[in-house]
């Protein structure tokens, strides 16, 4: 038979009709930009595992997962409207929601608590908070441990004014410590520890002044969303949390798969370092009291209230916000889906 334009058209139409009738295309996937808190690393593997394994597709979602540029900046990304949901530092919501009650961003899923730390190296003469007096300490201005330093002061008696602060971008903080341009740095332990390791510093040569050792425990990484989005698209939010939760549960049970998904997303990552970072984050996620009490994603109300009080005092805000203005746990998947599995091997 000769191919004419009309037979071609008819053939195409038939093919299209067949495709449209198949169930996979019958329901178009809902596109959704989703921001992470920082450059792709560690537990982010859970998101890409969820993507690869089709956990999002099973919910009818097609998320566009984007790397972050600082966990405290995620709330800016959400408030600006480019994103409606993402993984970020929920402690930043204490200030944001206090100042912007008309466009709150709410915590909806707890990932990991903060691991705030002042870090130094052996041989710099710093082993306890008092040793920081008169020393040079490097701190990115947006760094959570720097912002929470007033809480460290309250617990240790070392005022910020006794320290000579040097401010720099987070990506050169560890290099400045190694170079000796600063005597110590403020950081999230999981970030600085592995950055220093990747730069060849041995863990036994690192000195950690952990905020948690002085009773300062606050919330950190969690899923958050615009309050307006929670109101307008509650089903979409539930679907996102179901998929993310499946990714996280699977990452705990099978870290190797999570790491594989991460490495496929960014082959330039150092697999050894990322494996350690992942296991560190998993341990922090499952060992926190909130998760032990209510499963992954859960926030204990009393712990949250305590976090809000610490942040409010440290940042000099007029009054703490209500727990209900900070978080909304009604979008969490059922507790049975959030049971912590045994930690697998990487």
């Amino acid at each position, binding site marked *: 038979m000769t191919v004419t334009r009309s037979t071609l058209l008819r053939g195409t139409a038939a093919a299209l009709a067949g495709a449209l009738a198949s169930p996979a295309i019958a329901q178009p996937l809902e596109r959704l930009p989703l921001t992470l808190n920082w450059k792709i690393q560690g537990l982010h593997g859970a998101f890409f595992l969820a993507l690869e394994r089709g956990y999002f597709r099973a919910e009818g979602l097609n998320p566009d997962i984007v790397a972050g540029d600082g966990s405290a900046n995620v709330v800016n990304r959400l408030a600006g409207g480019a994103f409606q949901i993402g993984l970020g530092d929920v402690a930043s919501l204490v200030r944001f929601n206090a100042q912007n009650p008309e466009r709150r961003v709410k915590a909806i899923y707890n990932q990991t608590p903060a691991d705030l730390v002042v870090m130094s190296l052996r041989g710099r003469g710093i082993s306890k908070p008092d040793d920081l007096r008169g020393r040079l300490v490097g701190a990115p201005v*947006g760094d959570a441990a720097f912002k929470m330093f007033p809480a460290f002061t309250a617990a240790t008696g070392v005022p910020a004014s006794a320290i000579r602060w040097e401010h720099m971008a987070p990506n*050169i903080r560890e290099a400045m410590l190694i170079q000796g341009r600063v005597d110590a740095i403020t950081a999230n332990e999981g970030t600085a520890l592995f950055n220093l390791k990747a730069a060849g510093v041995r863990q036994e040569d690192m000195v950690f002044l952990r905020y948690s050792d002085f009773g300062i425990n606050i919330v950190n990484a969690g899923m958050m969303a615009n309050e307006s989005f929670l109101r307008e698209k509650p089903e979409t939010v539930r679907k996102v949390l179901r998929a993310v939760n499946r990714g996280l549960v699977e990452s705990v049970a099978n870290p190797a798969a999570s790491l594989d998904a991460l490495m496929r997303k960014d082959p330039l990552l150092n697999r050894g370092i990322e494996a350690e970072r992942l296991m560190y984050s998993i341990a922090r996620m499952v060992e926190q009291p909130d998760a032990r009490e209510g499963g992954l994603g859960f926030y204990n109300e009393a712990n949250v209230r305590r976090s809000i009080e610490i942040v409010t005092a440290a940042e000099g805000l007029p009054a703490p916000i209500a727990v209900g203005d900070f978080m909304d746990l009604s979008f969490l998947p059922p507790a049975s889906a959030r049971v912590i599995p045994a930690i697998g091997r990487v």
Partner: protein
Amino acid sequence: MTLAARRRLREALSPALFVAALLLAWEIASRALGISKFVAPKPSEILPIFAQRGAEILPHAAQTLSTTLAGFVVGVALGFALGVALGASRRFYAMVFPTLIGVNSIPKVAIVPLLVLWAGIGTVPAVVTSAVIVIFPIAVVVSASIATMDAELADVLRSLGASRLLALAKVGVPQSMPAFFGALKVAITLSFIGSILAESVAANRGLGFMMNRAASDFDVELVYSGLLTLAAMGIALYLASLALERRVVGWADRRG
């Protein structure tokens, strides 16, 4: 008022009126479209910040202005000298220019963190970045202008016994001035970019630092007031270079 005076007044006022019209259009568009302050605050939200928190902004602005000026002066001097050498000698040009292109192709964002590790935090990297960023455009424009200097004039001078160097000083350099002042205006804006870049990577003072900190406190109005301050300082430097240009190469302006 004479006709000429009125025309001068109109010329002096028109840039200010244009800025005012822009701000007004921004305000109206922002209100009409209901744009959130996290996307872009309205001028009516930003301008009061200068009255309320001017004392907070001033030391940062002074720091940025001084590092930028220092870098600008150093960079322009180096760029000019390099440009004259490149324009005067074909052999030097052939030897150095490819390297210059290569060095300038390295993004400054990648250099600043290294500068900070070498030179420490604060003023030095800001001055260096602001200088490095202006050398190239000045050198390129000046060298092209010197290389194409009026051959007849140069020949006349040389036939009268002038050395090559003297011909360069009497013909090449003066002829390159209009182009040099054009490049200067590009360099002003670039040198601000350089110092702000360095300040936002590592500094304890300066507008780059202030805007970084304000952003981490969700203080959007302060971020934007920093941006407007930068714009204003850029315009001030532009006006200064314009005054200098009128003195030095007023002869070259053929506009009616």
